[in-house]
């Protein structure tokens, strides 16, 4: 196979495996449509459906609140925007989100993921309980959603931060849930 055919194969595999993909503001209207789609497309596997739904809610809410890029929805309100993708692989489902972060957020974002991946399940639950007991609005309070995501997923968090320009980067997070 030549290079062009190879690239085409990769591209079509990618498209074939995509169940949901979205790019735009994460407002309540959009999220409810995506939630419905997740429930519908995974209805034959209740375990996966429940897990992906839980992961989706936490990550979508994080983007809605914390994305450095805001977009207006149809009603003229501003919401954090980003991308979201659900793909079906051979033995697992892959759920990814991406959003813009400011330069000063890059290090905390990476540290947060590193910390979560270092902890075993018991330690992660302890960490969640600790975060939950902090008063609302405490810096880092929003991390609890990501801890819940790690507890729900079947693999460690996969993450990458790509520099966009001098002041911003793009933060990609990928979470996997086994089919069985």
């Amino acid at each position, binding site marked *: 196979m030549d290079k062009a055919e190879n690239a085409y194969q990769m591209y079509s595999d990618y498209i074939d495996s995509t169940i949901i993909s979205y790019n735009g503001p994460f407002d309540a209207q959009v999220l409810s449509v995506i939630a419905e789609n997740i429930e519908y497309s995974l209805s034959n596997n*209740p*375990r996966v459906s429940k897990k992906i739904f839980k992961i989706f809610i*936490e990550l979508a*809410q994080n983007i809605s609140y914390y994305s450095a890029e805001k977009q207006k929805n149809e009603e003229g309100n501003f919401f954090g925007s980003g991308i979201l993708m659900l793909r079906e692989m051979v033995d697992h489902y892959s759920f990814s989100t991406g959003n813009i972060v400011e330069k000063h957020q890059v290090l905390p974002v990476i540290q947060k993921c590193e910390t979560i991946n270092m902890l075993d399940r018991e330690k992660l*639950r302890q960490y969640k*309980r600790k975060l*939950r007991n902090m008063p609302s609005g405490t810096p880092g309070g929003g991390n*609890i959603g990501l801890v*819940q995501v790690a507890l729900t997923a079947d693999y460690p968090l996969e993450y990458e931060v790509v520099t966009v320009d001098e002041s911003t980067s793009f933060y990609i997070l990928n979470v996997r849930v086994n089919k069985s």
Partner: protein
Amino acid sequence: MENILIKGDHGTNFIPTVDFNAETGICELGGESYLEDTIEFYTPLFKWLQEYIVNVKKPITFNFKLRYFNTSSSKCIIDILHILRKYQEEGGEIKVNWYYDSEEEDIDDELEEIEDFMVETNLKINLLPN
């Protein structure tokens, strides 16, 4: 004292079903809890419980029948449990039941969450099939 009755909704927001009854002392929170403004929704529920504790002073049975809740709702669940535990410490009679879906095959995650609630609040929660 007025009762609280809120019909749950699975629309743009997932609003839980609320049924707080001042005559029977039975409070129910069920369905799905994923809201944009969690605190705003739960604050009247906290206030109701506190008012009941001060004025009615009768036993409370709290039944959780939640199928889904996000982490910000779980913070409010913790707050409810703290109110109930404080009432118990002051001599109030309380009972907390958590109903899980008995047809659901995979409830490990849910059981873990309830265990976390108990560890976090030091309150006994009875696990019952629904």
